[in-house]
Every structure is written in structure tokens, then in C-alpha cells.
């Protein structure tokens, strides 16, 4: 059943996905208008080139358009799923450009990890945090912790690659990752703890 954009705008992401699975371009348009900005920002943050970021976002959203029917609302938020797809493609672009073997594949279903319902609630609540506050939480980390997190998440490097890059033992890298994530988690809304 086709719906008009006006009606689609009132639907939650999880309600849009079945429509997208039915190849409703109006639902896709609403979906892109909601998330295209953060998707492009993430892609640009990772690949560092506007043209490549466009390619990444285009490929990711076309993948979602073609696989929307496979989205399972019981397995995670649409936004996290979408951002995972964007990150995968951006990291793959980076690794290909650098002559590194792709570490990630394009199995978007793999991003839909099994998670309990209360965790999805957490994720949705987190979206209400302002980007400024979130950047603050990351910015307050000691530099050695934020560096390993950024190299892994935005750079697509493995922990062993990061260890070699920084000239520190592998265990040190893992420890910094853990300390950093624990601190970010601790800075997030206390109600989510």
C-alpha cells in the first residue's frame, strides 16, 4: 500500500521500514530526511572527503532501500542499524583506499545483533542527549583513551594495528578502550545506568 509523504512523516522509523520494504519512495524520502544528515556527517568524519562521503551514503541508503524488508524491529533501533551500515561502508572505503584488506563485509543483517528490548529503550533514550553533550563526554576523556577509540571506531583499525601504530602493547590498547568506553558510559544519563 502506498502512503503519501505527509502521512509517512507521522510514522516512527520502525513503522517506515516495512513501507520501505514495500518499495514506497515516500517512506524512503522521510527516512532519508530524518537520518541523511547524521549519516553524511558520520561518513564524512570517517572518509574525510565529501565526494567519497556521498558515495558511502548513497550506497548505504540504496542498500537500505533494497533490504528494508529485512529489518527486524525486535533486533534494534533503525537509526543504529542505519549508522552501522554507513560506518561499515565508510570503513571499507578507507581500508580499500589504504590498500588494507577489508575487515568488514556488507552483511547488514550482522548489524542487527540480538538485543533485549530494554536495551533498545536505552538507545532511544540516548538519542535525546544533545550532540554537544555527547561530544563533551568524548572530549573529556584522557587523550590516550579517546585516541584508541577514535582510531578503532572512526579509523577502522584493529586493536593490533593500533598497538603497532602507537608503539604500545596490545593489552594497553585494550585497557584504554575499556577505560574510555566505561567513562563515556558513565557520563551518559544516569537513568540509563
Amino acid at each position: 500500500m502506498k502512503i503519501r509523504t505527509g502521512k509517512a512523516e507521522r510514522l516512527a522509523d520502525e513503522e517506515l521500514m516495512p513501507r520501505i520494504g514495500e518499495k514506497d519512495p515516500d517512506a524512503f524520502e522521510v527516512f532519508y530526511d530524518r537520518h541523511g544528515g547524521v549519516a553524511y556527517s558520520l561518513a564524512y568524519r570517517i572518509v574525510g572527503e565529501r565526494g567519497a562521503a556521498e558515495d558511502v551514503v548513497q550506497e548505504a541508503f540504496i542498500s537500505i532501500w533494497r533490504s528494508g524488508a529485512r529489518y527486524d524491529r525486535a533486533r534494534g533501533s533503525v537509526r543504529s542499524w542505519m549508522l552501522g551500515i554507513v560506518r561499515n561502508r565508510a570503513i571499507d572505503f578507507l581500508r580499500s583506499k589504504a590498500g588494507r584488506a577489508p575487515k568488514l563485509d556488507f552483511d547488514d543483517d550482522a548489524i542487527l545483533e540480538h538485543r533485549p528490548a530494554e536495551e533498545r529503550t536505552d538507545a532511544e533514550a540516548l538519542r535525546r542527549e544533545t550532540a554537544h553533550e555527547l561530544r563533551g563526554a568524548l572530549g573529556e576523556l584522557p587523550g590516550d583513551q579517546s585516541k584508541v577509540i577514535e582510531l578503532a571506531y572512526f579509523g577502522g583499525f584493529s586493536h593490533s594495528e593500533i598497538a603497532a601504530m602507537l608503539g604500545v602493547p596490545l593489552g594497553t590498547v585494550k585497557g584504554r578502550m575499556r577505560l574510555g568506553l566505561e567513562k563515556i558510559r558513565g557520563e551518559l544519563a544516569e537513568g540509563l545506568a
Partner: protein
Amino acid sequence: MNETEHDRWRDELSAYLLGALEPGEAADLERHVAGCEECREELRWLRPAVQVLPETVESVEPPAELRARLLEQVRSEAKGSEAASGSRQATPRRQWLRLRPLAGLAAVALIAAAVGAYAISDGGSEGGGATTVVSGHSPDVTAQMVRQGETGTLRLANLHPLPRGKVLQAWVRRGTRVVSAKALFEPNSDGTATATIDNMDGVNTVMVTTEPRGGSTQPTSAPIVSVPMPN
């Protein structure tokens, strides 16, 4: 399981969530987590710290052209066209920019090793005004510039494939000033390409250079072809 071994797994959780484990390591961890309630709880607690990372990036406005391309593609596919079913790959920007081969281009007599210009009858075509055809060349590339009114169409042949990350960019020279014609394109598989120049007013020369993907604000390489325009 003793405490030391469990601690080892716990140290892997953050790297796992950040996608920093090698595939084999991640599979090992997943097997452990499947049977370890404590690690599952740790993952559940830590995961939001990774989920917020995309939200921390500085906001960058996506270009309107990206939205237009996406919507154009999905609306085309939504129509259930045969073309959509024949191609299951996303159309990246670089392919979208690639123009279709010119029908009958082979039949066009492109003048190599010479530059000439002539006016031909506009015939019955709409728009009025004479059509000017100019042909030029470089050692390898053959070019034909067709101007009708203020619009020009540049047709190239014998182009070589571009290095990865490069595009062709058209430029126009007016007097001593060279500006981008805002036309980025790539060769077709048969070595041909076309580009549209919207404003030919006062143009002395049309040039094409190889530029980094996304284009440049000024030429960064020598022209692969240069077509002088008659005044």
C-alpha cells in the same frame, strides 16, 4: 572458569564493541559471551557508549544533489521498471555522473590534427539560433564542441580510463580568466564522454583537465584537451 581467564574476555569486550577485533577473535568472543551472563550484562551496559559515537561527530550538511540522486533512483526502482530488475547494484555518484555514450558518435567525423569551426543550419530544431560546431584535439583525445545559443555540448573520444579517485572537469576561459564550467564527468567504457556547458557567453576556450574526485576550484593539471571557440 577462573577469574583471570574471565578478566581476559572482559578486556576484549570494548574492542569487540568498537569493531577492533579481528574476525576470528570476534567469533571466539561471541562463543564465550553466549555462555557467560556476566559478559552479556557487561556488553549490554557498555554498548550505548559506542552507539553514541556517531552522534558526536560535527554536523555536516549533505549536498542537495545527494538527496535528489537517491530519490530519483528509488522512485525509478519503485516503478518496477525492467531496468531496475536488471541492475541490483547501487549506482554510486561516479556512475551517475557518467553520461551515456553518444548514439552514432562513431559516425561523427571528428577532425584530428586541426581545429575548425563552421555554422550549420539550425534546421527545424527548436530554440532558434545558429549551431556552431568546433572540433579540436590533443595528442590522444578528440573533441567536438557543439554550441547552440548559450549552451554548449562537449563531446570527447579516445579517452583513457581515469586513475582511481579522479574525474574530468570542464573549464571555460574568458579572456585571461579560467573558471570551472561546473561539469564533472568520467569516460564511458568506450572512451567517449560528453559534458554540458551552460553558459558559453564570451567563452574563448573550453578545456578539460583531470582533477581529484569532487572537482577543483582551479585546474590542477594540464588540459587533456583544449577547444578554441570562434568569436
